């Protein structure tokens, strides 16, 4: 295997030398909007969009420059400054992997910025919203462009902060404030893993840069596996993988563009990026850490799909689906360079079709007075054609309808998984069937069937500023998969960055047994959904449902588990600590003070005010002193 981290000498020139602008532009935008305050209200959103678009332009120019280079040279280091002397040199690494992410982040991010102009037009705090979005874009770009784990970690925390601020954007709603805190705290658990992983990495290899690790000889032993598992814990937190998945569904309290940008298209995929970027070092094919990543991915893709089957809240349904799709990516990332390429491919196409569907859901909510309950939708197709058609394109892409994006990338992951680990692979096939069911359920309940609207709902199509991004995203949802996967284009592009062999084309078998069974299962799922939610009437109030339905509705009892395992014992612990503090420490301190106060109160009675008493005590004292002196003298 080639060394994936071989940096080719000198600092890059041309546009790539200015790739720090990608981070700086949105950061400056956020700073202006936050410091400028209300004065920037009038044009704040335009500045936000301009900064995001500017970053996108830089990313495109950098891509053009990379494409002009020899494939072996497409790994450009941009040294910025010495961050921690002797330990961390801050620099950017512009290679095939990071530029793919940068394009996704700035491209989809800019579309979502534009969409938000319309979506947030009635919100008096729209400027603050754009400031946070810009902050997010800057942090996310730092995460993917940094050439070392410390820079990555700073971006990692930055996106966590932006996510917190945006989930709690409507902080006056208690549910949003709680969801924001929950996301932050659950992510802390993952960040702890990432941090400790970095500590161990530093003590073991003495370097935290990707280039340094590339030069180091890494044997797969216990320490390396531990680092891998710790990094995986971090990835699980950020990417809402089991067992740290519980925050993502609550994160839907934020404005819908946030759900689309951060909690579907970009930030939640940071975990996959971390695994792929560290892949050659800590997750090589066949290692324990990679196996665990595969197990986590498989479990999450099924859990997310099951949750998605029972949610009536359109955004929570999509959130379950996001969990599930990231599960697929994590599964792909467990299987070496070929798996990485498919995972990244699915990540990119998912970024398009999921953002498309989330923004479509936002458009529907916009039309329905912010109603999110799908049982109160129905028959919306004729009222909002553009939204409906783009949403359906996203839907066809995610269920893997032949020739659309999801078909190619998801199928690639499943094929790779079956090749290396049939159990995981066939479970992923089952997950695809579930995807077919829950996504069809969503489509039938929202756009078809009888209208079950509230009396004061007057659905209408959204303005062009919202529908144009939908159209662009749906074009990506149609064609991107074929473009990336056919002929192994994405694989050959990414191979030098992730350590794959370049003269290799991953096989694509559309008519293989797994491929056909996936299609068959998806078809079965769609048909079941049609009978249950298309043909039959959907009741406006949710039926109680079986044990399984409740199980899925309650997020597989994830919250209950967290509550009984961590929250309650934590509360007991704090109560015990409070008790100990009140009774033990306060008791000791107060008791000591009371003892001293009491005894001094008694002692002061000695001060009688009678001069003769004092004279007597002086006499006794003198006598005592004399006696003592005599005694000592005699000794």
């Amino acid at each position: 295997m080639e060394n994936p981290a071989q940096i080719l000498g000198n600092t890059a020139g041309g546009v790539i030398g200015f790739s720090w602008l990608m981070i700086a532009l949105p950061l400056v935008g956020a700073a202006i909007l936050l410091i400028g305050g209300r004065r920037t209200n009038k044009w704040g959103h335009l500045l936000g969009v301009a900064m995001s678009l500017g970053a996108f332009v830089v990313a495109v120019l950098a891509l053009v420059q990379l494409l002009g280079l020899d494939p072996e040279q497409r790994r450009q280091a941009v040294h910025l400054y010495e961050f921690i002397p002797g330990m961390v040199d801050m620099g950017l690494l512009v290679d095939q992997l990071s530029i793919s992410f940068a394009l996704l982040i700035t491209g989809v991010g800019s579309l979502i910025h534009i969409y938000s102009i319309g979506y947030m037009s009635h919100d008096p705090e729209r400027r603050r919203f754009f400031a946070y979005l810009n902050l997010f874009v800057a942090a996310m770009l730092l995460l993917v462009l940094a050439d070392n784990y410390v820079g990555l970690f700073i971006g990692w925390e930055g996106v966590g902060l932006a996510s917190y601020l945006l989930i709690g954007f409507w902080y006056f709603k208690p549910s949003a404030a709680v969801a924001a805190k929950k996301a932050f705290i659950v992510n802390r658990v993952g960040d702890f893993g990432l941090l400790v992983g970095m500590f161990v990495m530093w003590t073991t290899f003495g370097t935290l840069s990707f280039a340094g690790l590339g030069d180091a000889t890494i044997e797969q032993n216990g320490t390396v596996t531990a680092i891998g598992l710790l990094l995986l814990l971090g990835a699980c937190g950020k990417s809402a993988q089991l067992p740290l998945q519980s925050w993502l569904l609550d994160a839907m309290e934020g404005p819908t563009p946030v759900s689309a940008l951060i909690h579907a298209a970009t930030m939640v995929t940071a975990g996959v990026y971390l695994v792929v970027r560290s892949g050659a070092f800590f997750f090589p094919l066949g290692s324990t850490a990679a196996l665990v990543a595969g197990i986590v991915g498989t479990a999450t893709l099924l859990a997310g799909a099951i949750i998605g089957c029972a949610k009536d809240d359109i955004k929570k349904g999509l959130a379950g689906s996001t969990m599930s799709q990231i599960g697929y990516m994590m599964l792909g990332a467990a299987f070496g360079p070929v798996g990485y390429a498919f995972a990244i491919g699915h990540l990119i196409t998912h970024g398009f079709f999921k953002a498309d569907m989330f923004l479509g859901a936002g458009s529907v909510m916009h039309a329905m007075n912010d109603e999110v309950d799908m049982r109160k939708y129905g028959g919306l197709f004729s009222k909002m054609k553009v939204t409906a058609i783009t949403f359906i394109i996203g839907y066809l892409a995610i269920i893997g309808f032949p020739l659309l994006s999801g078909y190619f990338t998801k199928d690639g992951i499943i094929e790779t998984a079956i090749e290396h680990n049939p159990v995981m692979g066939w479970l992923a096939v089952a997950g695809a069937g579930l995807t077919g069911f829950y996504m069809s359920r969503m489509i039938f309940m929202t756009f078809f069937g009888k209208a079950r609207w509230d009396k004061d709902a007057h659905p209408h199509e959204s303005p062009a500023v919202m529908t144009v991004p939908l159209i662009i995203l749906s074009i990506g949802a149609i064609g991107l998969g074929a473009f990336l996967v056919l002929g192994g284009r994405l694989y050959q592009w990414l191979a030098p960055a992730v350590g794959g062999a370049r003269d290799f084309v991953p096989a694509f078998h559309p008519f293989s047994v797994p491929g056909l069974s996936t299609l068959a299962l998806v078809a079965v799922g769609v048909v079941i959904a049609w009978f249950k939610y298309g043909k039959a009437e959907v009741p406006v109030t949710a039926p109680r449902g079986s044990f399984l339905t409740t199980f899925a509705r309650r997020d597989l009892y994830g919250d209950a588990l967290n509550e009984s395992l961590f929250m309650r014992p934590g509360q007991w612990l704090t109560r015990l600590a409070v008790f100990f503090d009140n009774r033990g420490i306060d008791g000791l301190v107060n008791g000591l003070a009371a003892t001293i106060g009491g005894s001094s109160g008694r002692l002061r009675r000695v001060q009688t005010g009678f001069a003769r008493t004092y004279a007597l005590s002086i006499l006794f004292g003198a006598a005592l002193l004399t006696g003592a002196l005599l005694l000592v003298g005699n000794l």
Partner: protein
Amino acid sequence: MTTEYLVLSAILFVIGAVGVLIRRNAIVVFMCVELMLNACNLAFVTFARQWGNLDGQIIAFFVMVVAAAEVVIGLAIIVTIFRTRRSASVDDANLLKY
């Protein structure tokens, strides 16, 4: 000789001490204090004579000077107290207490 002087000094000291403890009149108490001081002076002078050097004699002078100063201050205080409280009893001046 020395023993007799010292015995006298001790007797004077004890008389003074008992006087300080049992008498109430501030003037008498004061006189008793002077008696104790002079008992000490006697002891100093005795020892100076015994050992044939002047240290004790000098200390005695110091004690006298200090006693004189003390008498000036002390009597002034006693007179002031008597003016305000119409009493020279040390037991009546007992406000400075717990």
